[in-house]
């Protein structure tokens, strides 16, 4: 069985406590949807050029793939997760969520025109406020930014970041440059200024090869290998000293899994002990920095046998790192009851709500 569907199961048999879902999605059904929220110059620009919107979403989430939307969550031929009612009926109501963090991946960074990309980000943020945040008090959201242009991104964060519904800035995990590099500091300055989490999320620039070895043939290949990009981004942030520069910075990793965290963390620790002099601002063990500044969603969980998965949880070295998510409408077959069965009792409420509540200050 797959728990996100709660098929034949009451939510209360799974978990009686509070639920915060740290990753649910809103999909922009079409570029036209955004026209009401966009500066007319770009409405005309779009129409005049016959442009159908950014390519990012279709490349990061191929329309027919199961990982893009579970069959049960494809309604009447409409784009999955494109209406509030879908999210309410499929997740918010049956799961009785207290709060859910809404993420809209619209591939802003797959549009290269700097002004147009900034306008597109603003339109998406305006749409999220009007169509989602204002209509369901259970929702909080990530704001989107033109990530290729950190100055413009910071301006957009300052424009809407004070809206009480925005709790996070979405940073798509694939980029042309690694996010720890100083050129991105304006984004972190603006995020911490507005007390927002940085959400490292699936997706991102789609022109460059997605891995160190060039362009994959199959989507599955790229999908499985995406872990390496998450690792590269977080390693960059650690060694560049992003967290020393911005001690208040909080990062959430979504759709990246977590089973790789301990062994990668050990490897960083080991190298740091001997190579510390190169980046002397890294003043303590890298895995400790990760524990202080990063949280991970559990969709996907990519679990192994209960015994082995339990070992991974133990090696995380903290009960505070994982946050429950359904990742609606994406399909993952991990059963949250399996995860609940292998974690210590004290960790359960943290996983299901408390960690996300603290991280997003809900």
């Amino acid at each position, binding site marked *: 069985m797959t728990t996100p569907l709660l098929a034949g199961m009451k939510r209360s048999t799974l978990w009686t406590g509070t639920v915060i879902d740290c990753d649910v999605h809103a999909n922009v059904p079409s570029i036209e949807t955004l026209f009401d929220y966009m500066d007319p110059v770009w409405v005309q620009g779009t129409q005049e050029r016959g442009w159908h919107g950014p390519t990012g979403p279709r490349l990061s989430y191929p329309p027919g793939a199961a990982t893009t939307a579970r069959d049960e969550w494809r309604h009447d031929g409409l784009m999955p997760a494109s209406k509030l009612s879908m999210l309410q009926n499929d997740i918010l109501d049956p799961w009785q969520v207290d709060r859910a963090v809404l993420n809209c991946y619209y591939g802003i960074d797959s549009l290269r025109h700097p002004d147009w990309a900034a306008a597109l980000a603003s339109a998406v943020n305006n749409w999220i406020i009007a169509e989602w945040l204002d209509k369901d008090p259970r929702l909080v959201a990530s704001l989107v930014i033109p990530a290729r242009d950190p100055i413009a991104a910071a301006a957009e964060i300052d424009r809407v970041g004070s809206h009480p519904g925005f709790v996070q800035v979405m940073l798509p995990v694939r980029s042309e440059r690694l996010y720890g590099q100083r050129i991105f500091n304006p984004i972190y300055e603006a995020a911490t200024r507005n007390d927002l989490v940085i959400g490292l999320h699936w997706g991102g620039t789609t022109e460059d090869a997605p891995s160190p070895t060039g362009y994959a*043939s199959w989507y599955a290949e790229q999908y499985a290998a995406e872990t390496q990009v998450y690792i590269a981004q977080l390693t960059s942030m650690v060694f560049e000293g992003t967290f020393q520069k911005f001690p208040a910075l909080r990062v959430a990793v979504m759709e990246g899994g977590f089973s790789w965290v301990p062994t990668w963390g050990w490897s960083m620790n080991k190298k740091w002990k001997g190579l510390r002099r190169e980046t002397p601002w890294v003043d303590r063990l890298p895995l400790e920095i990760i524990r202080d500044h990063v949280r991970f969603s559990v969709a996907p969980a990519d679990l192994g046998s209960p015994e*082995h998965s339990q070992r991974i949880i133990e090696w995380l070295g903290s009960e505070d790192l994982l946050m429950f998510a359904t990742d609606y409408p994406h399909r993952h077959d991990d059963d949250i009851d399996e995860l609940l069965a292998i974690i210590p009792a004290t960790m359960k409420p943290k996983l299901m709500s408390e960690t996300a509540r603290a991280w997003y200050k809900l």
Partner: protein
Amino acid sequence: MTITDLSAAPVATGSKLGVIDVDFHPMPLPTDPQVADHLPQQWKEYISRYGLGAMGGGVYPSQREFTHRLDAVDDNGRVGLDPHLAVEQVLAPFDMTAAVLTCPQTYIITNGGANMPHKLATSLYRAYNNALAETWCAADDRFRASVTVARDLPGGEREIQRCKEGKFGDKFVQVLMSPSGQDPLGKRRYWPIFEACENYDIPLSFHVPGMGRQPTGAGRQNFYAETHAAFGVLPLALVPSLIFEGVFDRFPKLKIAMLEMGWDWVAPYSWRLDATWEKLRHELPHLQRKPSEYLKEHFWFSTQPLEEPERPDMLEGVFGMFEDSGFADRLMFSSDYPHWDYDSPYESVPESFPEDRRRRILGENASKLYGIPLRENSGLPSPTGE
């Protein structure tokens, strides 16, 4: 038949734990006689006039000039040049059966071989392969060599043939390529290499760093420590391409040795591969089995750098998970001599481990993979042997 059936390879039993080191680095430069003597005059002159772009310094200087351990410096201030010093520092003290020489320097210096005249690149790879055979293997019969091929230049299979059918043919026990390149490994352009490996029944190995394209899926790193800490990203990109492209259904005898790319990530990553396949099977009708099964059957790993969990008592769990997941006969001792993060056989495989595990990792697994019989009565003392 499955290729895991390697039981025919002779493994000496005895009172010693035989040791084979599967990652041992000669580090000559193209200007050193051991390499230069094998270069056509034309290219020697070319190198002295135009240099080699990737030589010297680098964009993130490592902590030491040759990323070496300081005590491996020879009388001339060089590292990895003298086979006798290497024997004296590693092979002799640990009484090894063999050391498999790997020379990633070849692709580091040529930046994968793509940014120089084609003939220069292939001449350089050839010269390095000759140096391993004629300088190193000739100096001590415990050395074995890798045929390094330029991943993205045509003709790799011919270089494999030249080495395997030459005078030192038996000394070449594997093929070595950069873990990254212009294309993912499963693509057709690499099939002739796979075919040659199958033909000569030798493993195809990969060793950090990856040369040829950006080192991550999101651009280049700024620090040596950062690249080192993220070496684990390389196999995560390499493995799914080989598996999902169906390479192992086409080349069922192909064996892959992953050197200096860690191994503690393998079990958790196999869960992700299987989960990916479950969700996206529709795209992969050509795949005959679960990804983790290909991983178990076709991949080998080396110990160095030793995994260092946060608490020493976690180490048993790390080894246990790897072994329980079907990889007990897939881990091979490697020292990475003469690099700074060198491990001795006592560090990689502590004496506190069960003898059976020590025996497998120190020598048996490599003996079977490379077909190198363990020498009678050589190796580390066995606690139970008389």
